[in-house]
């Protein structure tokens, strides 16, 4: 294969990579109103607070994506003992789950290693906004997340804050504080939203297939060139 043909093949491969959006890496972001629903968790020894329903809507679907990391921002009230292994974790679940114990067993939900600790700045006995760093997702968590997102046409998921032992956790939809500056006390309302970021890359199997196809095409081209050279040398001979 001469240089022009090689560049042409390489150009086609690069163009195909650029033209297929689902193969591109990036960060998907969704910001939604906080939900505030609280249910029992771990046989009612703990609690699960629904943060919200996050909407990602990947145009090319999620089948070819590998989710590497996730981070979340939320407003929450935690007890001081919610640190270390007692810090509540983020669970991703299919929409509408009301029994997370069961959903985690059936694969309709996956527990991540993202923990929201009382110590995470800012801390205090009240409602504070916390933002985690990106936390790696294991291969199992990534696959489960893909399945959860793929189960909804708009690639939505429910994010929950769960604790096996703590119940005094509040992820409020809104909060009020008492204003006593006027002649009569009144309540001032604050509404909360939360942001979930998912960092992803093209799924390894897609990359492997893509690379394999490229190698196969190049090998085919070389073989074709070798055969042609052989034929031309025989004709000359």
């Amino acid at each position: 294969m001469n240089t022009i043909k090689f560049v042409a093949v390489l150009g086609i491969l690069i163009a195909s990579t650029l033209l297929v959006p689902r193969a591109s890496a990036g960060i998907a972001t969704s910001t939604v109103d906080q939900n505030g629903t609280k249910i029992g968790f771990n046989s009612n020894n703990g609690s699960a607070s629904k943060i919200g329903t996050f909407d990602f809507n990947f145009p090319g679907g999620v089948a070819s994506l590998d989710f590497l990391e996730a981070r979340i921002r939320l407003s929450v009230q935690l007890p001081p003992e919610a640190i270390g292994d007692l810090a509540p974790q983020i669970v991703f679940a299919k929409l509408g789950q009301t029994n997370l114990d069961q959903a985690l067993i059936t694969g309709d939900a996956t527990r991540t290693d993202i923990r929201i600790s009382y110590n995470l700045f800012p801390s205090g006995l009240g409602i504070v906004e916390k933002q985690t760093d990106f936390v790696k997702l294991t291969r199992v968590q990534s696959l489960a997340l893909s399945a959860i997102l793929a189960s909804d046409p708009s690639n939505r998921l429910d994010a929950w804050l769960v604790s096996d032992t703590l119940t005094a956790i509040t992820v409020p939809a809104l909060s009020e504080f008492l204003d006593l500056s006027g002649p009569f006390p009144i309540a001032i309302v604050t509404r909360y939203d939360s942001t979930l970021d998912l960092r992803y890359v093209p799924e390894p199997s897609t990359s492997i297939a893509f690379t394999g196809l490229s190698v196969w095409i190049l090998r085919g081209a070389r073989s074709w060139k070798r055969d042609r050279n052989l034929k031309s040398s025989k004709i000359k001979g």
Partner: protein
Amino acid sequence: MFRSNLSVSTSVGALLLFLSSWSIATADIIKEFTQQSGVAEDFGLRRAVYLGRLFNGVDGGPFRRMDSMYAIVTLAQANNVQLFAGDGNSNFDSAFSQGKMIDTGIRVSNSNQTDTQVVFVPGNPSNTPPFKIGVPAGVAIHDSLAANNRLDFWLVGITNSGFTVPSNVSGNVANFFIQFDRSTAVPEPASILLAGSGLVALLAKRRLRRSN
């Protein structure tokens, strides 16, 4: 002469009864607010969250009991949480077992379990009559105030109950507010009966003398 004396004593008795009734109506209002503490205790019997201390330096004065009250607290996911008042800013169980904590009778619930709400009990003071405190509780709360010149307030639920009481709400101070209407006298049934029967006996004696 005797009839005249009897008439005077009857009038004096009636006047005393009237004056005693007058003193029952004497009352004042004490009210205060402060930042909620939010510190929780759960030793297995109940879950108690300390609200804070109010009425520092307020003495009992001539007053005898708390008649009625308003309470405004900020909390989430509460269901029939009890409001206690008394003496003690830590270890609620110990203070309770020593009789230092008095159940005001107020119960607090969130109307919306997804929100952290300011709850007015029994309603906004601007347009709602106050919550009537039972006589024994009202006397005990006032005795505690008179003895300590302060009152500590707690919200108490069942053990492991998940209600939360913030100290701050997104950078804003979470206050609680308490107002007591207190009065000078205790309308004890025994006193009323004694005064009433004394007056009836006096009138009966007068009638008896007249008939003689």
